């Protein structure tokens, strides 16, 4: 079945350093991939969504590229900010009804 793997449970970085959060997936079809972000005591919100035409989605300085050959959709940012501290979920969807299957999440902590 479909699955999403996020290998890092916790990532701690110093402000200004680059961010890379890993996401790989298994799917029978060609799914859409997403990154959702959840700040403390808030609801999860969509951060990025993969495109079908190899465009690289970007939002709030974050970007991710879907690599079908390696089944990956890693999240990157060139310079971490304190406000980036949050829980990040990679998710995939291939159903007609928008059902999202989430990875286990990566907690990013950015320190001064």
């Amino acid at each position, binding site marked *: 079945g479909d699955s999403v793997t996020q290998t890092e449970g916790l990532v701690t970085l110093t402000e200004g350093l680059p961010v890379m959060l890993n996401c790989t997936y298994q799917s029978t079809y060609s799914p*859409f991939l997403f990154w959702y972000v959840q700040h403390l005591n808030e*609801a999860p919100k969509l951060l990025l*969504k993969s495109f079908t035409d190899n465009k690289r989605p970007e939002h709030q300085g974050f970007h991710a590229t879907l690599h079908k050959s390696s089944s990956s959709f890693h999240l990157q940012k060139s310079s971490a900010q304190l406000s980036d501290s949050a829980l990040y979920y990679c998710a995939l969807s291939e159903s007609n009804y*928008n*059902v999202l299957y*989430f990875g286990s999440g990566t907690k990013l902590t950015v320190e001064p």
Partner: protein
Amino acid sequence: GPKVLQIPSHQIIDMGQMVTLNCDPVSNHLYFYWYKQILGQQMEFLVNFYNGKVMEKSKLFKDQFSVERPDGSYFTLKIQPTALEDSAVYFCASSFGTGTGQLYFGEGSKLTVL
């Protein structure tokens, strides 16, 4: 932006009792979802609902679970009877259409079954 409201934010009940979790989705949305997150684990899909019907459900959506949205009011998740393993945070989400992945989530309802 659009908000999904969940009531209650916390509920503590005894095993075997019934609980109803309420969700007020974004007003023009048509698709509704429940996800379950046990502490320290990932969010797992339970069920989605459209046009008065369950469209997909997972193995976690046991027979004791039911969902409904009577007359466009709250989208509810009812568990009857509850079990200890039902303790979790339940997230409601809604979306306008399909294929976009743009789900709007509530802040969750934390259920503790004693």
